[in-house]
């Protein structure tokens, strides 16, 4: 996990249990081989990773979901392997943080084997990366994956031909079904492959300049000097940074050589290099892929996939996904049935009463007993909320999200909304963090890393904090307002309006160009239930490990705030603002506690509402304000970590007055118009 240099935060983060490599340091020491999976997005690296390690890497039918590098351990036959799953990248040359990760791993990690995972049906487009890896001189194996999909498209792989052309061991696999995996495992277990003698001669002046540059390099780059020289010729930022570090005295001369070569050809050299690689890739793919006429019938999946991208047909499909997925599945089933049962029955009847009795008898001081079983007790409130309310909601959402991801719907949604998102300073890619935000804004803030520019990441972080309710909050709101369709419509309209308007303003105010949109659209696939289950469980595990401790800590903090009377001061300060938007005094603590737990704010409103203190209009106003109000403490911490203290503070400073301002206006409008809800 990448951290900004903030001591206290680092320590806090290190103290949290995490599903990462850190806790496995001991195991790492005993691993006899280190293997890294490399490949473009959406070729099945993570499925292979899961298959080998039995562990989790977020797998999905959406390009770019491996945000961090997953590490796991596998025992293949008798060899113990440490497996690294790199983020998807099309090339070793680096344009984004994601891609730089792969290049750095290749240069810095001592690797015993690199497995290039390629999509069989797009072999022609995949081979340029194989060529780059061969040039890099790393011990390499090529795994041509998804041969089942290629077969369906009428393409058969001649693995032997491919292996001979490239001088590499080749495995042909269909990782989702496990086909061909023994061959891959045999390669992982066997002798390390000999270096390939495959070589492309680039057109002059590239080849001679590369040789001249290579002779100037003396540092240990972890990859061949020719590969470094080629990257330098392509003006790759990562390679230039390494050059500055490892061979600073060669900098001037290399710059001269590169500029000279660039002057000789009028286009960037990367153009000629890419063309040369692709010509070679094309030649090899023609030999290695045998094409027979494919079935002429368009399958239902293809039809659905095309419809989901259609400007008109796409809208009812989106509406159906929202209604069935979000409203019925998460709202009704998760928030309704599951929460009722867990909260009402399990905790309400069976856990809380005996525990309360137990603690009050055991602990003679009421103040201390309060900590555990009081109104804001760690168990009665903290744990109950975490397990009975948040977990079922978030779980239902993650399950839904995993289904959508694996089906290939999300990239289609991305292309559908790109034009609208451009207006709010985002590209279509941002649908992933935004939709994920409806599950958990904290996780979504982490996922904004898939966005390309800092500007886009800041806008997405801001919108997540302001206008995207998380599933915990959404569950409570849907539950409260489902009996009042007009209120629900007003709430939805205002939040959508704020989302678009504030995004529009943010895009106007933040300097910088709009991010370009480009995205590979994978074929629609039936989600594999096993995959969906692993992913949902893994995300829940992450959630339980990262978020719940913070929530429990928040319960303690609330307890401290209560007994020290600090909260009374804060409540007194909030009361005028709450009254100004037409809410009773009792609603003030909803806002205060809403910071510690987003859902908790909404739930307090529910309590106040059940007490009869609020009618229709104030209820809707309260829901709107609490949705817009500052993010929960976990999300705030992640914002600080990902975007820096200043950006996070700025976002907070904008949101606070904005939320109350919007509430005030809404209240004014609704009461002036005498709207009945």
């Amino acid at each position, binding site marked *: 996990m990448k951290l900004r240099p903030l001591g206290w935060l680092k320590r806090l983060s290190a103290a949290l249990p995490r599903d990462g490599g850190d806790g496995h340091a001991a195991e790492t020491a005993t691993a006899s081989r280190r293997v890294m999976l490399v490949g473009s997005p959406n070729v099945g690296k993570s499925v292979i990773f899961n298959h080998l390690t039995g562990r989790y890497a977020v797998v999905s039918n959406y390009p770019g979901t491996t945000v961090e590098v997953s590490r796991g351990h596998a025992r293949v036959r008798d060899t113990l392997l440490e497996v690294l799953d790199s983020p998807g990248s099309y090339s070793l040359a680096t*344009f984004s943080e994601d891609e730089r990760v792969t290049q750095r791993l290749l240069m810095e990690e001592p690797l015993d084997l690199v497995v290039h995972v390629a999509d069989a*049906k797009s072999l022609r487009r995949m081979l340029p990366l194989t060529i780059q890896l061969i040039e890099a001189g790393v011990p390499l194996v090529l795994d041509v994956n998804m041969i089942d999909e290629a077969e369906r498209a009428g393409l058969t792989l001649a693995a032997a031909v491919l292996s001979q052309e490239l001088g590499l061991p080749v495995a042909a696999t269909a990782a989702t079904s496990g086909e061909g995996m023994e061959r891959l495992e045999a390669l992982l277990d066997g002798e390390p492959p000999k270096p390939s003698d495959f070589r492309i001669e680039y057109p002059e002046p590239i080849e001679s300049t590369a040789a001249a540059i290579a002779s100037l390099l003396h540092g240990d780059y972890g990859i061949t000097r020719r590969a470094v020289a080629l990257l330098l010729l392509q003006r790759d930022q990562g390679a230039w940074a390494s050059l500055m570090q490892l061979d600073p005295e060669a900098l001037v001369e290399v710059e001269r050589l590169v500029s000279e070569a660039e002057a000789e050809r009028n286009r960037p050299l990367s153009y000629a290099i890419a063309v040369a690689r692709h*010509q070679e890739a094309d030649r090899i793919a023609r030999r290695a892929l045998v094409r027979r006429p494919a079935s002429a019938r*368009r399958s239902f999946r293809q039809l659905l996939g095309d419809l989901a991208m259609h400007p008109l047909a796409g809208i009812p499909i989106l509406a159906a996904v929202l209604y069935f997925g979000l409203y019925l599945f998460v709202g009704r089933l998760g928030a309704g049935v599951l929460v009722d049962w867990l909260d009402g029955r399990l905790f309400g009847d069976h856990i809380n009463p005996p525990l309360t009795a137990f603690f009050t008898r055991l602990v003679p001081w009421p103040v201390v007993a309060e900590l555990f079983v009081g109104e804001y007790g760690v168990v009665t409130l903290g744990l109950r909320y975490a397990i009975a309310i948040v977990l079922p909601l978030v779980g239902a959402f993650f399950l839904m999200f995993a289904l959508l991801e694996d089906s290939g719907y999300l990239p289609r949604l991305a292309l559908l909304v*790109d*034009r609208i998102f451009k207006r709010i300073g985002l590209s279509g890619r941002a649908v992933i963090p935004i939709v994920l935000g409806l599950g958990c804004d904290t996780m979504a803030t982490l996922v904004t890393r898939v966005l390309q520019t800092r500007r886009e990441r800041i806008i997405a972080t801001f919108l997540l904090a302001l206008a995207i309710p998380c599933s915990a909050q959404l569950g409570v709101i849907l539950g409260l307002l489902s009996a009042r369709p007009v209120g629900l419509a007003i709430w939805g309209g205002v939040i959508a309006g704020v989302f678009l308007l504030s995004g529009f303003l943010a895009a106007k105010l933040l300097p910088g160009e709009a991010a*370009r949109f480009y995205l*590979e*659209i994978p074929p629609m696939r039936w989600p594999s239930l096993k995959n969906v289950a692993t992913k949902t469980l893994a995300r829940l595990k992450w959630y339980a490990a990262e978020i719940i401790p913070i929530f429990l800590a928040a319960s303690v903090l609330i307890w401290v705030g209560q007994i020290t009377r600090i909260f009374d001061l804060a409540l007194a300060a909030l009361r005028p603002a709450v009254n100004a938007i037409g809410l009773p005094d009792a609603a003030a603590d909803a806002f205060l506690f809403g910071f510690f737990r987003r859902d908790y704010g909404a739930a307090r409103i529910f309590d106040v509402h059940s007490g009869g203190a609020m009618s229709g209009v104030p209820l809707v106003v309260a829901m709107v304000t609490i949705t817009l109000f500052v993010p929960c403490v976990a999300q705030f911490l992640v914002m600080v970590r990902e975007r820096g203290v200043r950006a996070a503070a700025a976002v907070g400073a904008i949101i606070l007055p904005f939320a109350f301002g919007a509430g005030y206006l809404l209240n004014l409008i609704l009461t002036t118009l005498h709207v009945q809800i």
Partner: protein
Amino acid sequence: MSATPMSEYDLTESAEEVLARLWVAKEEQDRPSCPVGELGTEDRERALAQLLESGLVEREADVVSLTHSGEVQAESITRRERLAERLLTDVLNLGEAQAAEAACQFEHHLRRGIDDEICTLLGHPRVCPHGSPIPPGECCRAGTRSAGKVISALADMTPGQAGVIAYIHATRREMMERLLAMGAVPGSSISLLQRSPSYVFQLGEAQIAVDRETAQDVYVRITGQRPAQSEPGQRWRLRRGRGRR
């Protein structure tokens, strides 16, 4: 096409070359005037005399600069010359060096008006094969489309049209690198699937979605419609966003 307003003065080839040089110096090197010595060509003095007489240049001692009408004329010459280069490399597949040489002569015979037709045919290219910008003409501003064009920006293709990527010209270098890395490389077969709400194109077995800006960076040599055997059912016929540029 309206009657082509012929130049009153039929300039010689060398005179045109002098004008073009002055224009490049002014527009692309930020030097509003040039010393005579830099204007090359053998019969420089005769060419200059012709230009002075036509009121296209001004001369002060040994320094020459363009007049306003000279600038208009020079821009048009540069445009034709660079379009000719494009035509020779993209359509006739001449090598870059060969094309540059032939383009100078070719340009001389390209009358104004015809350059717009060629420009439309080539999909309103923005740069010459060497990367120098081509001054846009009336046709570029109006976004004229022609059914018979040979080269087209991906953004101006109609769904169902297929071809081979001729070249990529991205205003942002990073975007060019990304397109290349994804496999959108000159020589690759490509066909447009839909234009709205985003552009989706087929590249080999893959489908890639891009926004309009990116679709304007990819220039395609049109070869015809999408082959029927790989696209069986009728693809959704999408309305073309005509005239939107």
